[in-house]
């Protein structure tokens, strides 16, 4: 119902319009589609002038029900949806899930399968950190670094396409091994990439490392100390930047990481700049692991020798009735996994991603619960942002590297 206020009767009580709160405190809602929030995040900020007094992140805008969906799919089919959780590191998701199921089944793929898994997940880490580097640099104003970093990632995605047929969501790992062996000539391509990548990264570092704008915007911004970070469940590069040398690959080795030699870069100040350094150094450590994995790669089978779990080769279907029966049974029904529950943690590019898988002995998971590291990082943002300037909000969110597919799942 509209009401016309005539000019003579116009009265406005300005006090009614004031926002509750003391001083010039003001509530500002950012997102859920702010270009710099790296996904659909909403942050409700309470600011005084330019200072952030309180930040409240709100999540859930990208909720896709992936965990629930997985319960309706067979153990193999679930790989494809779990892939799409952390869309910048799908192979880490793959690996965590198949390792958990393999633990329940009590199987382990042969050495070649394990080595390829490690090789590809480490490439994935480089790709994910490259994206992080590019987008963070873009948020701070460096457009060229975005292009250079994306080029590193592009080269890796080409390798994924070569091996699995897809760039973003390879769904390449299977319970008991891989979807298929890597194609011929793959190793040379990886080698060529590994020769190229340190040069590219060095270029990026020459642009950023001493750049005064980069330093001003990152150093001493978004500080979180070790105790606070641990209390909030922060893991991965964000925790290591605060000085805690916790890396699941070292602490609870999985998938054969204990056989590889690599260091864990650790920062000391817990600010955005240390998070940058830790990630960049980690890319080089991943590079080291990839080199070692290539050296270990020897011809051989990639899948466990168990026809009740792994599909028989296609050529066999035309000659062996046995193989055909296994094939039909595996595709239509899948395989039963012994009842039980496991928790498998692994180091994704963002931190400790955990898969808590419960089986009731059937061909479908009874429950897949995922501990997404980025979820905890989003809720550590208020601690990082407290007292920071409004303009630094963007840099802080970027430096924590949240991926919202994983936060909201």
């Amino acid at each position: 119902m509209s009401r016309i206020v005539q000019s003579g009767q116009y009265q406005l009580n300005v006090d009614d319009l004031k926002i509750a709160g003391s001083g010039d405190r003001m509530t500002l809602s950012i997102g859920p589609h702010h270009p710099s929030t790296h996904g659909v995040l909403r942050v409700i900020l309470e600011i005084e002038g330019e200072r952030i007094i309180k930040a409240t992140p709100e999540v859930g805008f990208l909720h896709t029900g992936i965990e629930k969906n997985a319960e309706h799919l067979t153990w193999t089919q679930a790989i494809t949806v779990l892939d799409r959780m952390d869309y910048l590191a799908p192979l880490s998701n793959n690996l965590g899930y198949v390792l958990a199921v393999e633990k329940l089944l009590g199987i382990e793929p042969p050495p070649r399968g394990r080595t390829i898994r490690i090789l590809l997940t480490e490439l994935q880490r480089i790709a994910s950190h490259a994206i992080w580097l590019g987008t963070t640099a873009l948020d701070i104003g460096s457009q060229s670094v975005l292009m250079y970093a994306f080029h590193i990632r592009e080269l890796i995605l080409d390798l994924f396409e070569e091996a699995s047929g897809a760039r973003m969501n390879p769904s390449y790992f299977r319970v008991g091994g891989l979807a298929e062996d890597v194609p011929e000539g793959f190793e040379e391509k990886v080698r060529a990439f590994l020769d190229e990548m340190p040069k590219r990264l060095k270029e990026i570092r020459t642009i950023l490392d001493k750049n005064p704008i980069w330093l001003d915007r990152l150093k001493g911004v978004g500080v979180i100390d070790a105790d606070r970070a641990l209390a909030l469940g922060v893991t991965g590069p964000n925790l290591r930047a605060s000085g805690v040398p916790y890396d699941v690959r070292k602490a609870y080795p999985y998938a054969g990481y204990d056989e590889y030699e690599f260091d864990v870069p650790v920062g000391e100040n817990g600010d955005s700049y240390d998070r940058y350094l830790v990630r960049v150094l980690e890319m080089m450590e991943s590079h080291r692991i990839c080199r070692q994995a290539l050296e270990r790669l020897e011809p051989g089978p990639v899948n466990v020798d168990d026809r009740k779990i792994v599909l028989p080769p296609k050529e066999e279907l035309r000659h062996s009735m046995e193989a055909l029966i296994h094939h039909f049974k595996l595709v239509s029904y899948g395989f039963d996994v012994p009842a039980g529950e496991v928790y498998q943690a692994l180091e994704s590019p963002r931190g400790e991603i955990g898969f808590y898988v419960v089986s009731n002995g059937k061909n479908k998971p009874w429950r897949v619960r995922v501990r997404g590291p980025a979820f905890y990082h989003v809720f550590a943002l208020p601690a990082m942002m407290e007292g920071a300037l409004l303009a630094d909000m963007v840099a802080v969110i970027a430096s924590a590297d949240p991926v919202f597919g994983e936060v909201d799942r």
Partner: protein
Amino acid sequence: MLKAIAQGMGTTLRILFRKKETIAYPYEKKPRSERFRGRHELRRYSNGLEMCIGCELCQVACPAAAITVMPAENDPERPNSPGERYAWKYEVDMLRCIFCGLCEEACPTQALHLTQENELADFTRDSFIYARDRLVNQHTSDFTVPVNVYPEYNGWVPMHDGADGRETGRGPQALREADKA
């Protein structure tokens, strides 16, 4: 400070004169890999028979429920595929498909193949339901009919194609010629 900026600028300047990594996309395309998972196709044997036997495994394997297969019996005089069954109706909903490749893995006859074609944009939702007319490859492939699987196989050749059984007059000879052209 100035030195650091100059160093950064120098790097970008050096990269500026390098060969460009970007491509002018719609005019220039990157070759896709051999295993690329794009649009589906149903292949034919070298003699023109369809490889798909309508076993519905792809439909069962699909995590996104994107495939619908309805099999029918082959007319022994004019079969579509070797054996008894063929896919009378075969539809893939490209809007549901997540291109995971599980269907290709599931297909026991290697009939289903994911091609390199990846530009599937269109204007209406209906146009994303790919039926037999767009899925069945009209060209023959190098696969030969596995005679050990079909012992009564006596050189059947397809007399008609298309879901409605309409005669198109494209027998194997016509197909082979089309292949050469």
